C-alpha cells in the first residue's frame, strides 16, 4: 500500500477529510476488474490531489516519515478458537478503537494485515517537520496503548522513523503504492521483538532524541512532585537481520 481505495474507504468510514477521499473515484467491483479503467483513473486521481501527492506518489520523492506498527498481543494464540464470524466482529471492533485514534493525530493507514496495522505520519499526508510527526506518532501510540490495555484488543506498538519512497506497484492493483526503504524492514523486525502493551523504539534514532529531550525537560523540574506516567526501559536487541541498531527501548504505561 498505500492503497488509495482502502484509504478513501477508511477516511469515509471514520470521518477523515483528505485529498484522497475527495479525489479518488471508487469503481464498482465490476468496473474495478477492468484494468484499463483503473490505469486511466490513477493519473487523474493523482493530479487532482495536488502537486504534493503527485511528487511523492508519481515521482517517488523521498519522504521522511514516522511509522507505527500496531498489533494485538499474541493474537494468533489467544484467539485460535474463534470462528470466522467472531473474528470478523473482533476485527471490526478493534479497527473501530484504533483507526479513529490514528486519524485523530493525522496518521494515515498504510497497510492492514489482519490484526497488524501499519500507519504513517508524514508526507504527503502531513506537511509538518520530522519532529512534529514524531510527536504526533508518539501521542497516537500512547493513546492506543491506554485505550486497549487490559482488554481483548490489548496491543503493542513498534515505533520507527526514517526515509521511504512510494513505489507504484504495477502488478495489478493499479491504485496501490508500496512503501519501500530500510525503515520498513526495520519496523517489521522491531515488531518481532516488541513487548506487549508497550511502545517500542530503537536507540540512536530521532525518536530516542525526541524522548531524551522530553525526559531532560521533566528532570530539570522538581522531580519530587513529578510522577512519570510512562517509563522507558532499555533492552539489548537480539541479532536482527538487516538491522544495525544494538538496543531498543520499550515505554510502559504506569497505570
Amino acid at each position, binding site marked *: 500500500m498505500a492503497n488509495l*481505495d482502502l484509504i478513501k*474507504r477508511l477516511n469515509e468510514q471514520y470521518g477523515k477529510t483528505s485529498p484522497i477521499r475527495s479525489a479518488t473515484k471508487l469503481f*464498482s467491483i465490476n468496473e*474495478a476488474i477492468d484494468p484499463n479503467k483503473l490505469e486511466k483513473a490513477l493519473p487523474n486521481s493523482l493530479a487532482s490531489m495536488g502537486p504534493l501527492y503527485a511528487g511523492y506518489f508519481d515521482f517517488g520523492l523521498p519522504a521522511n516519515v514516522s511509522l507505527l506498527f500496531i498489533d494485538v498481543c499474541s493474537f494468533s494464540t489467544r484467539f485460535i478458537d474463534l*470462528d*470466522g464470524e467472531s*473474528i470478523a466482529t473482533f476485527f471490526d471492533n478493534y479497527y473501530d478503537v484504533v483507526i479513529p485514534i490514528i486519524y485523530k493525530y493525522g496518521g494515515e493507514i498504510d497497510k492492514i494485515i489482519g490484526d497488524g496495522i501499519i500507519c504513517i505520519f508524514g508526507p504527503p499526508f502531513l506537511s509538518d517537520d520530522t519532529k512534529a510527526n514524531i510527536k504526533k506518532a508518539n501521542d497516537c501510540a500512547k493513546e492506543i496503548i491506554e485505550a486497549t490495555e487490559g482488554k481483548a484488543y490489548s496491543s503493542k506498538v513498534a515505533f520507527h522513523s526514517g526515509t521511504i519512497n512510494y*513505489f*507504484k506497484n504495477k*502488478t495489478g492493483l493499479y491504485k496501490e503504492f508500496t512503501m519501500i526503504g530500510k525503515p520498513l524492514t526495520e519496523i517489521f523486525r522491531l515488531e518481532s521483538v516488541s513487548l506487549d502493551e508497550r511502545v517500542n523504539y530503537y536507540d540512536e534514532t530521532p525518536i530516542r532524541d525526541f524522548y531524551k529531550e522530553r525526559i531532560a525537560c521533566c528532570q530539570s523540574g522538581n522531580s519530587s512532585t513529578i510522577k512519570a506516567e510512562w517509563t522507558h526501559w532499555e533492552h539489548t536487541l537480539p541479532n536482527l537481520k538487516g538491522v544495525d541498531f544494538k538496543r531498543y527501548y520499550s515505554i510502559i504505561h504506569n497505570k
Partner: protein
Amino acid sequence: MPNLLQIDALREKYAVRNNVLQKEIKLLSENFKRSTYEIKNLFAVSGTNDTLVRYFESQQSANVVLLFIDITGFSLKCKSLTNNQLSLYLDDYYDRVITSIYRHGGEIEKIIGDGIICIFGQPFLSDSKSDLFIKADSCAKDVVIELKGSDKEVKIALHDGDVMYYKNKTENYPEYTMIGKPLTELFRLEGVSENNSINYYHVSQYDGMACCQEGVYKYSQSIIHSYWNKSGIVQVELKGVDWTFIKRFSCTYKT
C-alpha cells in the same frame, strides 16, 4: 489478501496452473458485497465449483504450505535507484518470481515491496500435503536458481500449517485476509533466513522428504543444474514461535 482484484489481474498477465478458474474469481469478486448465503446460491445456480466459497466465505480451515520470498539486502540495493529504475528492477523481479509461482500451482497471498508471500494449498490446490511440499519446494528451488548470481538474489522461508481466510468487509475492496499462527511463524522465519536458501523449522515434515535431501536439482525451465546442501540445526530465538531450531537448504552452485 488474497485480494481477488490482484489475483485476477495477475492471472491476466501470468499463466496459472491451479484449481481455481478465473470465472470463479470474477463471480466471487462481483458479488463480494452479498451475504454468504446469496453467494453460495449464486455459485450453485450457475453450476460453478464452490471450493472458493467454502474456504473464503464459510471459513473452512485450510492446511497449506507457504513461501515468503524476498530479495536479500533489498533496502540497500534499492537505495541507489531512481524511482524509474526501481520500477524496472521490481517489474523484472515480479515477472521472474510470479511466473515460477504460477508454474508450480501456487497463488499470491500478499506482495509487500520485494516480499512475496504465496500459498500452496486450498482452495487453489487440493493435493496431498506431501505433494504441496513438493510443489512449493520446486517453486522455491526454481526461484533461487533463476535469480542466483543476479542483482536480485533471494532468501526463502518455507512453512506450513492451518490457516483461515477472513472476509474483509471493506466495500469495493474484495479481500480475504489469511490469518493463523503459521503466518506469524513465517514472518519470524523470514527474519532469520539466509541468501540463496530455503529456510524452514527443523520439525517440518519437509526436512525428511526426498526433495529436501542434498543433491542435484534440475531447473524446470532449462538445462541448468544446481547443487543443494543442507545445514545442521541452527539455533534461533523468535518471539511467538514454539521452536528454537531452523535448518537451511542452500543452493551452493548452479551450472
